[in-house]
């Protein structure tokens, strides 16, 4: 190193090392903030404005309802700023005995379980109402009373079966188009990739809608919408990085062109897997809450609907051509990534469902799907640019058909 370079490095070191003053500059506003908070708590300006003796703001969130034979159990959270005391419980317009454990008075974000020995009627609707000490009421409807499943081997088996029907098998069936795709030529492939983009775009809108709907059900303190949006952005970024990392790893062993197709397929499988996890959560919880009828038509609808997801996963593989065959093992891997989360989601949803969980996973799904959609479009468009790409007949037809297929199969499910 030349003397000049050494001096330059030394200079930078002096500039870069924070002086003790920096810490003081950082801390002063914080100390002042602490003083201000202390002052606010002592003087209570809000009370000065309202003139004291203002009724407390009471907000309870009933986050979960569980039904056992002869018993209704509620999970309750205080979602408001002030303390809330649950004084009485009314079931179907009748005061009823109840126990609150561990507490009946909840401060901000505290939780409790309300246990009501009530002879609920299988298959019928019930209404539970919490009456607080100030006379405010919080209602929860049980649309169809069905005993809440308890975790057991049988229970896991049944929900695994449901997950298999609506997630794993359809995705696997879609994957079986792989050999066909490798034989349909450039135009056909472009059509199929565009079809995939159409399918994914539809899923994106669908997931966003459901995620935001679930966000509306989340207790206000958890800020569901912000959670959803930033969860999606986070998933997008993480998947981008994962894709780059995977591509780097594969490039060391395979030709560059091969890697991108496989990596893209994996990323799509991850995105669809996350989406299916959210779907599994919803299905599991809906069954558990007795809000979902298990009809053959509905299973058929889900199977059709999700088969297209398998197609979306294998489409980028076919583009790589016969030079790099993906074996049965590879296809199975992709199928597992895309489909199995449905089973996990169904398990989780059936006995610990919360809208918060749904928001979280749906937001990850949205971010992931957005990322892979962009990847496919960019790679398909290639050098020609987005505008030229979107004007090609097979592409337009594929996009349109993708959306129509999703809409149509969605109609079957109702």
């Amino acid at each position, binding site marked *: 190193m030349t003397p000049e370079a050494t001096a330059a490095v030394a200079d930078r070191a002096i500039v870069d090392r924070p002086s003790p003053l920096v810490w003081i500059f950082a801390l002063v506003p914080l100390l002042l903030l602490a003083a201000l908070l202390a002052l606010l708590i002592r003087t209570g300006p809000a009370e000065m404005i309202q003139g004291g003796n203002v009724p407390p703001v009471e907000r309870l969130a009933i986050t979960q309802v569980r*039904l056992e*034979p002869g018993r209704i159990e509620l999970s309750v959270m205080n979602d408001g700023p002030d303390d809330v005391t649950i004084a009485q419980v009314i079931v179907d317009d009748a005061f009823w005995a109840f126990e609150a454990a561990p507490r009946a008075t909840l401060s901000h974000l505290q939780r409790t379980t309300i246990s009501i020995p*009530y002879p609920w009627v299988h298959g019928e609707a019930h209404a539970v109402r919490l009456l607080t000490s100030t006379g405010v*009421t919080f209602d929860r409807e049980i649309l169809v009373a069905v*005993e809440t499943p308890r975790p057991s081997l049988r229970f896991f088996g049944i929900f695994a079966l449901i997950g298999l029907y609506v997630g794993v098998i359809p995705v696997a069936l879609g994957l079986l188009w792989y050999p066909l795709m490798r034989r349909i030529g450039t135009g056909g492939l472009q059509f199929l990739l565009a079809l995939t983009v159409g399918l994914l775009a539809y899923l994106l809108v669908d997931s966003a809608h459901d995620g935001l*709907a*679930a966000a509306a059900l989340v207790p206000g303190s958890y800020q569901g919408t912000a959670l959803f949006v930033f969860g999606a952005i986070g998933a997008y970024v993480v998947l981008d990085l994962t894709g780059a990392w995977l591509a780097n790893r594969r490039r060391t062993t395979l030709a560059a062109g091969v890697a991108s197709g496989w990596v893209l397929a994996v990323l799509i499988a991850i995105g669809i897997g996350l989406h299916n996890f959210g779907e599994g959560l*919803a299905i599991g919880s809906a069954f558990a809450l007795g809000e979902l*009828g*298990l009809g053959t038509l509905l299973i058929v609808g889900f199977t059709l609907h999700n088969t297209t997801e398998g197609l979306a996963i294998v489409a980028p593989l076919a583009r790589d051509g016969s030079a790099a065959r993906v074996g049965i093992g590879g296809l199975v891997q992709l199928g597992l990534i895309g489909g199995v989360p449905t089973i996990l989601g169904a398990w989780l949803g059936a006995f610990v469902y919360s809208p918060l969980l749904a928001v979280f996973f749906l937001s990850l799904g949205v971010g992931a799907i957005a990322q892979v959609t962009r990847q496919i479009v960019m790679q398909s468009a290639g050098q020609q640019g987005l505008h030229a790409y979107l004007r090609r007949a097979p592409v337009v037809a594929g996009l349109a058909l993708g959306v129509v297929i999703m809409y149509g199969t969605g109609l079957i499910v109702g």
Partner: protein
Amino acid sequence: MKVSRRSWLHFAGFGSLLTGVAAFSRAVTGQTAAAPVPHEGHGGHHGHLLGTVGRVDPIGLDPMVYLRSWNFSHLPPDERVKFYRETPRPDGTTLREYEIFAVDREIEVAPGVRFPAWTYNGEVPGPTIRASEGDRLRVRFLNQGTHPHTIHFHGWHPPEMDGSLPEHEVLPGESFTYEFDAEPAGLHLYHCHSVPLKRHIHKGLYGTFIVDPRGGRPPADEMIMMMNGFDTNFDNENEVYAVNTVANAYMVDPIKVTVGRPVRIYLVNITEFDLINSFHLHGMFFDSFRPGTTMTPSDHTDTIMLCQGERAILETTFRYPGDFMFHAHQSEFAELGWMGLFRAEAAHRDS
């Protein structure tokens, strides 16, 4: 979460799907749900899962004291004189003077459930006013509340004593004296007639007004019951129903009566929002005098229906010792607090 978009979650009405859910549930649990809950007969409160949990704070209106007091008879003499004075008049009637004040006060309408009431003399219902036919009533009303209030009596009186028109409203801090003769004999009521009427009534401004016929009624164990309700969340529907304000009060502490001794119930319906209320007595029948203006019973029954402001005097005698339930025969009201027990005990022979 396509499930919700496809409205699987809201399929109420699609009966065929229910069978699917049922089959599924049985498959999961291997059993049918909803085992019956043990439910004792009408005997004791402890077996009941129905009803409010806990007891109300003894501070405030005691439904058991309210039940059998009128003209502030529950107060010690030196306290009572502040609110009620009797002066005999030359014609044999009595001048009865009352001090009634309106005041805002939080009351407990079910264990742990507080209600920001508007009250007469700090209690809901307000104090029972009782006179003989032809007595002179002088009711000094002071409004210590935060809204304009009045006292509107049912019964004969000149229009300026009606407490109902805008010019009759007594503003906060002001007072007015209602003066009129107690007529006709019967069971009446009083309530605030300021607008909005619904709010002024359901917030608690009402009470019972009894006019005894000259010579009185035959001796009996007399009690006052006002059927009322409370809209604690202000959605124009009652969350709590009761007689004499406190939900299930007489379920927790049954009203003690004596076998063979006549019982007279002054029953008034002041329930707001609901069209009617009713009174049903188990295992017995009663004579009903509606609204007590004649001495001939209008009915011999075990269930009586009253609209808001309507009232009836009920007379009966307990034949058997034991617990006798009474409640509204609107099951909803009964299960939301309007339910109680008489506990009949054999007479003590102290001779």
